[in-house]
């Protein structure tokens, strides 16, 4: 139950929203999934920017993906490039950065590009859920 590792989705299941977690470390994707599933979110995973772009472009994700949580330091397409892609192709989807490196310049530049939150690992589960909830509200506002 609730195990979505690809774009697979059960439409009849009650959900608070669909979140894509982009991180090259499987461990991080695992705990973020665990943390968010507790708050009733469906979680999709991608291990780099390239996979993340594939995932958001796959079928119903184009319409149903609500929030992206994205790391910066990743192989293939890195976080900065992936986020630029999301912002220009899916401006309705809020992006949260979750990174291991507290870098003020990077944070400023990301927030300027419309990223809604810049979180530095390790982040407490509650803080992460709050950030996702805030992002969900912003997405709904964007729909109005």
């Amino acid at each position: 139950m609730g195990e979505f590792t690809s774009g697979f989705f059960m439409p009849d299941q009650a959900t608070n929203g669909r979140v894509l977690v982009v991180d090259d470390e499987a461990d991080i994707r695992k705990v973020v999934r665990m943390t968010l599933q507790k708050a009733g979110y469906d979680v999709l995973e991608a291990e780099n920017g390239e996979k993340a772009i594939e995932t958001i472009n796959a079928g119903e994700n184009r319409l149903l993906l609500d929030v992206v949580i994205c790391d910066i330091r990743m192989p293939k397409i890195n976080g900065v490039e992936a986020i630029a892609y999301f912002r220009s192709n899916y401006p309705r989807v809020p992006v949260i950065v979750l990174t291991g490196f507290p870098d003020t310049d990077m944070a400023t530049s990301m927030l300027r590009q419309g990223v809604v939150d810049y979180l530095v690992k390790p982040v407490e589960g509650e803080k992460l859920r709050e950030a996702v909830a805030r992002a969900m509200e912003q997405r709904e506002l964007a729909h109005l």
Partner: protein
Amino acid sequence: MKHLTDSAVVSTIAPVRVAILGAGRGGTALLDLLHQIPSIEIVGITDRDLQAPGIQRARDLRIPVTDQAEELVRTHGLNLIMDVTGDPAMERFIQSHKRPAADVLSGSAARVLWELVRHEAKLQAELFHAEKLASIGSFAAGIAHDINNPLQLIMGLAENLAEETDLKTVHEQARDIVEAVRRTSAISRDLTQYARKTSARDDAMVALNGRLDEALKIARYATSFHDITVRRDYQPDVAARGNQDELVHVFVNLITNAVHAMERGGGTLTLATRMSRDGVTVSISDTGCGISPDISGQIFEPFFTTKDPGKGTGLGLYNVKTIVTKMHGKIDVESLVDRGTTFTITFPPATETPS
């Protein structure tokens, strides 16, 4: 025109032929310095004690060793006798046996020379350490990444354990936490070991494959290895005489440069070791941007850098070359723009097995 003639004369002039008496610390330091200078020929070294450190070093360097001080002092065509025994009887011995044409450096003159050599070695070591510390500054991003990721895992698992009721999951996640803590503590261990001042202990036979692997681990903090394939092409049991801390730093420098050269688009990093009768080679190759021919002559010069101001010290390859030369090795570079670069270090053949 005159200048050209002069330099032609200089290059054909016979080397200064030197004999060293005394193979203790002073003799060893002189040996290490003088044998690097092409215009000096060391005709031999002697000591009452044939187990003295300088005697072993001379053997490694293929410099003649003798226990016949008189014979050495009387060598034909000898220009200079360097007496670092500090023994007044030796001075008298030399004066009564040497040929008239040979100059003698002994007593406090020899002592001052030795102090200069030691001072130079100390400055070199400080420069080396300063550059190493400066390079560790660039590790910040890598360290933060490698510490904060396991911390995130620990945080998530611990939060879950506070509510988890399934005993099997509890056990599994507790084990994952222990594993993550181990990974994190390994980082501080690796780095503190690397950052410490180079140990002053004597040179020993160093197993090169292990040191390359250690350097690879450290270099991962210095730079991102994303989209880099690492190929390790090691011949077993390859060793060279040197200081292992310095060697690790040499390898970290070359590996980091290689990965930086492949920043755009990734590539393959190849580490290879070979041993033959002619010597031991370590080569570090990348498939990156290459070094343009108009700067390839300068890369080993101090303060030469292609990086932006504030990014590189310009001392990395300079220190690499200094250490390799000190180990009686040489370093060569082959590079093609947009194809890649190979640095090859060649050490003299090993005479012992690694300790």
